[in-house]
Each structure stands twice: as C-alpha cells, then as structure tokens.
C-alpha cells in the first residue's frame, strides 16, 4: 500500500464542457500514485463541487477546463470554496493560455497544469497542495 492515509482528491469539470478524456487520464494517474480520487465528471457547478468537497472531506479540488471559461469559472470556484470556509486548494488543468496563468494564480488558484505537464510534476503539485490544505487550522 502507498500512503498510510491516502490523499483524497476531487476531480470535476464545470459547466458546458464535454471533453473529459484528460480528466479520466489524470484520475488514473493519481490513483496509480496512491490517491483516492472522488470523480464527479462532467457538467458540475461550483455549488455541486463545494457540496461534494464537504461531504467527501477532500484535500484538493482538481478542475479540468477546455472551453475557455477558466477566467470566469476558476476564480468563481476559488471564491465558492472560500465562502464555504473550506480552505481546500483548487488546481486547474486543461487548456489555459500562458498569459492567463498569472491571472488565475492571483485569483487564488493553487496551480495550473497545462498539456504536456510531466506525470511526476502533476502528482507532486497535487501532493504539495494537499499538504498546504492540511496545514490550515
């Protein structure tokens, strides 16, 4: 077995965005790295993600974006998590133009993982985010 306490990660796509191949690959990757992946899949809302994150007590929320809505939905997701008092880091993956990355991190997104991110980097990013979540009171 891997970690004594596996890192629980929630994975979802928000809104009208039907490309979930990438998210499924990431789910498998994280599973193989010893994480417990709570997979919500397609057509979620920021509200449904917050409810699931509370019930599942996850350490990280991973959102996949392929519809260009990241600048709207990324900050909205971070805000919804903060409003619920959760302190769970939000990581965004998918297609995000380089110039938008700082805008997202400024808005509180913990990390942005684009296409071609090496598996090890993605896993390390999720683990680091999980540690930061646990450090919160």
């Amino acid at each position, binding site marked *: 077995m891997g970690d004594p*306490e596996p890192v629980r990660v929630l994975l979802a796509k928000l809104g009208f965005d039907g490309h979930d191949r990438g998210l499924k690959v990431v*789910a498998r990757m*994280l599973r*193989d790295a010893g994480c417990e*992946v709570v*997979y919500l899949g397609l057509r979620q809302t920021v509200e449904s993600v917050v409810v*699931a994150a509370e019930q599942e*007590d996850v350490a990280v929320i991973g959102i996949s974006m392929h519809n260009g809505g990241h600048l709207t939905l990324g900050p909205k997701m971070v805000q919804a998590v903060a409003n619920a008092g959760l302190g769970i880091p939000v990581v965004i993956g998918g297609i995000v133009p380089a110039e938008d990355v700082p805008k997202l991190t400024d808005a509180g997104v913990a990390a942005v993982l684009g296409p071609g991110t090496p598996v090890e980097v993605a896993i390390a990013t999720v683990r680091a985010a999980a540690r930061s979540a646990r450090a919160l009171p």
Partner: protein
Amino acid sequence: MSTDAVLSDLLTQARDGSRRALGRLLSQTETGDARAGEVDRLAIAEQGNAWVIGIVGAPGVGKSTLTGHLAAAAARKQPATRAPRVAVIAVDPSSPVTGGAILGDRVRMDAIAAAHGVFVRSMAHRGAAGGLANAVPIAVRVLGAAGVEVIIIETVGVGQVELEIAMVADTTVAVMSAGWGDAIQASKAGLLEVAEVLVVNKADQPDARAAQRDLEQMLDLGVVAGGAAGWRPPVLATVATSGEGVDALWSAIEAHRTWLERSGELDARHCAHLRHEVRGRALEGISRRLDAMLASTDIFYGPDTPDDWARRLESRLCGGHGDPKRPSSPGMPAEGHDITRPEV
C-alpha cells in the same frame, strides 16, 4: 481543545447540518487507528437509530443510479430538517498495489441525490478483507449519531462482499438486470443467499419478465434463503434511469423493516452483526502479528508440509496453544471451546 472536545464539537455541528463537520468525522472513521476508535466511542454514546440498507450486485447492473433514486425516495418520506436524514456510503475498491482508488459512484447518483439533500460519501475499501471498508460500520454509527435515519450502502458485489454487507445492513437488496443469467446462475452460492429484496433492473429491456419469473421459481424451490425463515424476498422490477418502480422498491424495503421489527429478528440480527464486527477486528490484529512472525521466519520445503509450518506458527501465535479442533495439537484438550468460530 482536546481531541475529544474537537470531535464532540464536530458532532454537534454535524447535527446542526454542517456537511463539512460530518465529512471530517467520517474521515476519522477511515484512519484505521485510535482516532477511529475515539469517534466510534463518541458515536455509540449517542445511540443513533439509523435503518441500514445494503445494495449489492455485479458491476454495471445499475446499482449507483438505483441508489440515487432510492435515496431520493427515502428523503421524500422523511420530514425535512437542517441535518441530512438520508445518507449514502458508496464503497469502491482500492488498488492492492498503490492503495489508490477511483471513487466514481457520484457520477451516477449525484444529481438526484443532491436535489433531495442526501449526504453522499465515497469510501475506498483500503484493502479490508471481505471487500467492505473496515470503516463502514463505524461510519454507519457516526451518521446515526448525527441524526441520519436512513443509510444506503452501495458496494461492488463480487466474492465475499455480499456476506460482509449482510453483516452491516438491516435489509440487503440484490440488484440484477434483465438477461442476468439463467436458473443455474441463480443457484450458485453468494448474492441470492443474503438478499432480502430482489430487484430486476433495466426492466424496459427484453427478457426482464423472464428474469423475474426465474427468480420467483428459485424462491419457490427455496434456493434463495432470504436471510431468515418467514420472509419471502419480493422480486421487483425497476428502470433506474427513469426512476420507474423505485417507489415500489422503497415500500418493499419498508415492509421488510416492519417484518424484522415485529418478528424480533432485528435484535438477533444486530447481535450477530456486532459479533461479526468484533471477530473481524480481532482477526485483523491476529493477522498483523502473523505477518510479522512470517516475515521473521525462514520457511522452506520439506520435510515439513505447509500444514506443519502453519500449525507451528499458530501454536507460537497462541502462546503454545494450538487449534482446539485438532486433538493432536499439543497443550489443548480435544473438547476445548472453539473460539475461532463464533456463531455469527
């Protein structure tokens, strides 16, 4: 604050409707160490009284979708309060190699369950023998302590798990789909022996009626044990994708509950559940010690047989006392009480 105070504070919040607090408490049940014991002690003191329904069936028969609808049907019957009245525990397997897991049951039950305020928690089985997460019985008590009245446990029905779920649930529902197999399949041991309610899902498909008829004939022959004498498992037809037949299924589950309560079977069952859980937890400790002993023992072929080795280890593990079932074992009378098999 002490740990106890923190946990008890979380439980108060959970009863006031905090999903986050309940989520946190459920994580404690999964730690597998003293923290799980602490939260269990707290939950037991509250004496919750939740009805526990187990859903078993092969992958792909529609368990998750049906569970979502069933949870919604249960929620419609419960008076609305701040705290959730209906909860789902969805168990999926962990990888034996990495310990990781993909918990995907929410995909098929979330929309309908969320609309009715159902609390859904996914659990990886984390290598538990028997296939049901060790945390499940504790999680059931925690949910009960938080005021949840109906708990639906959904799990993958492969191998030993059917028996495990029957040792946690008050009512076990076995789900099959149209074209699930013939009379011989039904005669095989396992799924049908523990089922108290039988469901043929995907009833809009051809052959659904044939599947129902096969099951009824099986019941006539007494092949389906139904958990206890005096209860004949009803066979229901559902279409989980549309919700058709779900209200009738819920009524059948309620009828089983009424029967359990009136027949006095419920108390006997809870007693058996407790004995089974204690046995499982004791076995875990014993098996850890056995593994440690194995790791430090050089084992080789011949002249001793594997059975000779096993008896030697067993004898060392039990402080010189061997298996009481084997009169030849040293240091134990033949008529010794068999503590290895409690009557569960």
